[in-house]
């Protein structure tokens, strides 16, 4: 019954997840092989959204929690690397596909 309750309580979230999965599949479907590398790289940049979590960690951490702040600081740096590096490298790849 616990499990059934979980489904009732989190109904919207579960719908959200299932639909997101289908959107992910739909978005990738039929992509030509030539674009696989930039697409992987672009997807790589998008999961850099994990940086939002790192920022939340920083904001929620007590100002006197030094270890927490250090870890959060590192997390924000790493997340930024993922986001910025990911988008820039993807842009460089795609720049080459432009029509002449």
């Amino acid at each position: 019954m616990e499990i059934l309750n979980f489904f009732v309580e989190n109904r919207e979230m579960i719908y959200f997840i299932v639909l997101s999965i289908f959107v992910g599949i739909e978005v990738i479907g039929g992509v030509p092989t030539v674009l696989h590398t930039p697409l992987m790289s672009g997807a790589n940049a998008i999961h850099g959204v994990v940086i939002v979590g790192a920022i939340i960690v920083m904001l929620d951490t007590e100002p006197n929690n030094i270890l927490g702040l250090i870890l959060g600081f590192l997390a924000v740096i790493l997340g930024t690397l993922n986001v910025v590096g990911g988008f820039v490298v993807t842009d460089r790849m795609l720049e080459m596909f432009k029509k002449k």
Partner: protein
Amino acid sequence: MKGILEISYLIGSITFIVGLKMMGNAKTARKGNLIGAFGMTVAILGTIFLYEKEGQTSREFFKIALIFGAIAIGTAIGWITAKKVEMTKMPELVSMFNGMGGACAALIGLTEFPHVAHQIQETGTGYSSMAFIIAGLVIGTISFSGSIIAYLKLAGKMNKPIRLPQYNILNNALLLVVIVFSAYVVLQSTSLPPAIVWALFVVAIVYGILFTIPIGGADMPVVISLLNSFTGLAAAFGGFLYDNKPMLTGGILVGSAGTLLTLAMCKAMNRPLSNVIFGAFGGGSGAAGADAGEKGTVKDVQVSDLAVQLNYASKVVIVPGYGLAVAQAQHVIHELEKILEERGVEVKYAIHPVAGRMPGHMNVLLAESNVEYDKLVEMEDINPQFAQTDVVLVVGANDVVNPAAKVDPSSPIYGMPILEVENAKNIVINKRSMNAGYAGIDNLLFYNPKTSMFFGDAKKALTELVAEIKQL
């Protein structure tokens, strides 16, 4: 204010979907990437200035300064590295950035663990939050250490797959340990010392390493794609934890899209994913190499003869492989293509889906040297055309043209779709030496009577070839 934050999150989520969709089409791809980057910026700025957790969020100046400091450092390093990297090194860079995202997710878990453990102790609720934290931590960590190994392998710093004795059993046992340990930490977080989460972190790092090291360099693209979807999953768990929609959309989107991409890559190699990960590869190579002596002789061709042959051909198909990329010969090959076209020769490039180190890697490389997009022909479309082709020029490719994939059931690449170059009238193979390809297996094509070997470093040999053709 909450309303504005929600709008910025909505913008973020929508741009991720639209951006990724647009990246599936060569015409709109670049714009799609920029749209995604725009949405990301909106979501990040919204979080910094507007995020609020019931009265607990303190926005001291020094904390905001720290956040912007960290973003500035990350932007500077990420931007410069991404701008400076050579085209051939892009796959490993993607792997590295993926690892950074995984590490970010792991650090979030490490920081949040004591808070939620405290909450469970005080209120008795929060087990689901704890499960999300641990799941994000473990998956992010595996993605992190696995990506670093993939990076080292692609960068050529770790050439041979390292296989511990019984590595499959060992890895699966360790995976079981990771799962049980994780579940234990979730359920017992209040009675365990807080340092336990660091122990879990270390175990997950070890698993990520052991998961990746037995896999050969040729399969790294698949591994990177898989780890990419892992990081997406880790981000999605962060989204559950904070009930944060852009993290959820972005994470799940990448998780499912990445998984599909991984399967598409496996399909291109005609190998099930389990085969890549648990690796039957290399097992058959001993047998394949054993009868190398009786395959006949290899004949080579001089540059002057080849120049004439190409010059008077009516249709030439170039098959590029990773060797072309390593030799940085993409500009010379374009020059060769241009001069042949000027002489009225029809020139096309045959692109195998897994040529290079990542799917589409060859396209990116050739695009760098301004080869026209229309000249790149995918495998299914070019295969029927080989019969009307006068000369096939294979540059630095090996396994993707190996007929053993069609005829030799004992070959490790048996069943992989290949470019059927043996149907062409003449085959010329540029290679540095007679060494086997990435999969470590011999290539029967070299002994085909129609085949001539054109030995030498791709860049040097092709430059000589172009010079020779110009004199005709």
